[in-house]
């Protein structure tokens, strides 16, 4: 009996040791990212191959995009687990900076990134940018009636046929916050109420907006360039429209690399950020995800716009961060949750 007990206890001890510490050993870096896994994971594999440093990653889901890992980083603030946060947008890192969770790092590769897409002190550095675009189904929307502005989402002509992601997560919240910032509170609320009155279809994510439009379940929708590009690659009958090029401009959303304070592998974190800011990564993301390179001299593949050819919406990313936090309860109410 004693032998059996000893074997049982030893088995459980070994099992527990295994699940609590079996992935220790060797150089590693822990990264949390809200950049889509389908694009970010190959970048991490390339870094592993190049540096010999194992990348342990946590990816955000599309439904909780950017905010799931952001909230986790805040919750883990007292005892950080991650070294790097590679955010899908520059606004979430600012919330971490406000809470003192970020270590400034002026990466050598950040030198040539335009000033609008990085902080002066190296708290965050932008790279590979997306734009918010309209994706239209060419079978449902005649060429001469293509939407040109995000206001078309509220056009009664498209009642019940336009789609956007629920503006509680991801770049859609950022877009709405940008509208609140540029238009002012009253006009932005009126626009959102007009969308509701126009029976806009609220999808769980931008990827789902793409799917709805590609499948012909919505005539057009508001999404990101990477999702739109995915629809084009799948051969869906769609057209990508950069909205408001004669007016407000399209919202540009650079991804952003941030070094976290007191992370367990600080030096390896810096190495990963250096790699993320390389031209090689910008080129890879332009090819795989239609992200617009921010480093000068990176060739843009066909179908991807160069950042300087677009009219961008004039936004201050730092102000958007505050705006997003402030309007969240109202947005939840608007979304019926």
């Amino acid at each position, binding site marked *: 009996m004693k032998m059996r007990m000893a074997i049982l206890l030893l088995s*459980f001890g070994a099992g527990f040791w295994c699940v609590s510490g079996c992935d220790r050993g060797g150089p590693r870096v822990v990264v949390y990212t809200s950049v889509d896994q389908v694009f970010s994971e190959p970048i991490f594999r390339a870094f592993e191959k190049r540096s010999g440093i194992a990348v342990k990653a946590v990816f955000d889901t599309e439904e909780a995009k950017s905010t799931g890992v952001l909230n986790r980083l805040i*919750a883990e603030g007292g005892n950080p687990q991650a070294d790097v946060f590679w955010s899908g947008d520059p606004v979430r890192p600012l919330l971490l900076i406000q809470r003192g969770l970020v270590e400034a790092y002026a990466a050598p590769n950040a030198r040539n990134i335009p000033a609008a897409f990085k902080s002066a002190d190296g708290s965050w550095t932008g790279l590979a940018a997306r734009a918010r675009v309209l994706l239209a189904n060419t079978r449902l929307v005649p060429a001469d009636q293509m939407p040109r502005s995000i206001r078309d989402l509220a056009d009664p002509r498209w009642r019940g046929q336009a789609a956007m992601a629920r503006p509680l997560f991801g770049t859609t919240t950022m877009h709405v916050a940008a509208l609140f910032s540029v238009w002012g509170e009253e006009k932005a609320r009126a626009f959102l109420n007009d969308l509701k009155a126009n029976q806009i279809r609220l999808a769980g994510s931008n990827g789902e907006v793409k799917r709805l439009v590609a499948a012909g*379940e919505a005539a057009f929708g508001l999404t990101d360039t990477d999702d739109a590009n995915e629809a084009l690659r799948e051969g869906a009958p769609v057209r990508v429209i950069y909205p408001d090029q004669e007016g407000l401009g399209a919202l540009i959303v650079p991804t952003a690399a941030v070094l976290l304070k007191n992370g367990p592998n600080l030096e390896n974190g810096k190495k990963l950020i250096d790699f993320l800011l390389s031209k090689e990564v910008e080129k890879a993301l332009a090819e795989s995800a239609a992200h617009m390179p921010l480093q000068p001299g990176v060739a843009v593949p066909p179908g991807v716009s160069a950042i300087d050819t677009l009219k961008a919406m004039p936004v201050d990313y730092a102000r958007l961060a505050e705006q997003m936090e402030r309007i969240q309860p109202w947005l939840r109410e608007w979304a019926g949750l």
Partner: protein
Amino acid sequence: MSFWRRREESLVVGAAGLALFLAAFLPLAWTFIEAAAADPPALRRGLAALKAARPWILLGRSLTLAAAATALALLLGVPLGLLLGKTEVWGRRLALALQALPMSLPPFLLGLGWFYLFGAQGFVGSEASRRILFSELGAVLVLGLAFAPVASSLTALGLWGVDAALEEAARVVAGPVRVAVRILLPAAWPAVALAALIVFTLAFSELGVPMFLRVEVYPAAVFARLGGMDFAIAEAGFLTIPLWLVAIVLLGIERSLFRRRSFAVAGLRGRSAAPLPLGRLRFPAAACCWLATLLLLAPILSLAARAGRGGGFSAANQWLWPSLANSLILGCAAASLLAVVGAVLGHAAARRRPGEKILDGLAALAFLAPAALLGVGLTAIWNRPPTRFIYGGPAILVLGFLARYSIVAIRSFAAVLAQFSRDLEDTAAAFGAGYLRRFLGIVLPANFRGLAAAWILAFVFCWRDLETAVLFYPAGWEPLTVKIFTLEANAPEAVVAALSVAQAAATALVLALGFLVWRRKAPW
């Protein structure tokens, strides 16, 4: 008898209870404690959230949706369970085994399969089918069909547990239909009722399918507060209170219905040798069963077709293996821990030990509580320097699974023990055997199949889990379900479909291995 020997049972049950307390109660209670301590206005906001009309409307909608999905699951699952469990339908065991596949996949993946079938551009889709799919009715159909195998399996297992002598006696004087309606189904009703409770709970707490089909439900309101920019923990905590009230009502119903009856969930009693003869009805009955099985498997077949059409199987190769290994390791580790805790607490429940109702209730509340809230609490409790070895590795997920699915292991083992005479234990005790000796030497070997069944059930729940793992899996330990859910947004449809099929295939393999173990006698 020494001091420790006399207290062996209290210590062991106490240790299992403590594990449950640390994994489930502390994290859930933290929501309120931390919010109250750090930010008193947050509590006022939490209360305000509860006073608003909208959450109650969503609660009503969720309850209705869960009730309708349960009704559908029973309507399909109970007759199916009866036909497959007790009659001479051709290939009935194979059909039952096949039905275990959709049961062990996250319903969200089945929803995706239905979308490939009935979306506007689906294999047999149209605008009308799309409208139905993306509606409350669609959510009821997807969830009802996803959980129907729970009803069919439990009904079949319940029927296998019906006393063979009773059935044989009835057959002497009555035809098969009368035996089924008057003897078998009434005898198996606790299993059917248990299936109803499980399906209702799963449908009520489901998040992925309603979000995918754009149906607003109560769990989504809680999730929105934890996934949103303002990270409104206190509001999420307060919105959990109605969920716990629902759980208490369900527990009350369950206890009043089942506490005085035992039922088989592991097929331990002697079966009737011959299945019920169907005569001329044999062919139509078999056709109905196989059509229903095909219907339940349709979303998986649809996923396979979608994967095959776009070369998904070869492309999925680069995404599959690390996550598959993670799921297997996590599932095995968690199922083993759950089997141990389930065996100890299930034994305590079956023998009506003091405090068992409290622990059972806690396990039930943790099962129904929003997984996202549990995740936030686990992070707050365990992410500290002294416990970094737990939080920083897969052990934290194992703890999360322990919190969320302990009820599955406790109830399944307790149900098995309810049919195991305590005479042997009492005799051994009379001869001076202590608790551990009786438990390890008599209870576990004599109920090895029950223990194996509890392990398999626990494994399946951990294996198919999405909600618990998605918000706090440790870096580098992403399970396959989470990977599919994450890739689903942007990866090519064929790849996502292929990964889903791989999850189903791995499930089949694990279930087959589990079945082989289940058939063996105790190895000690």
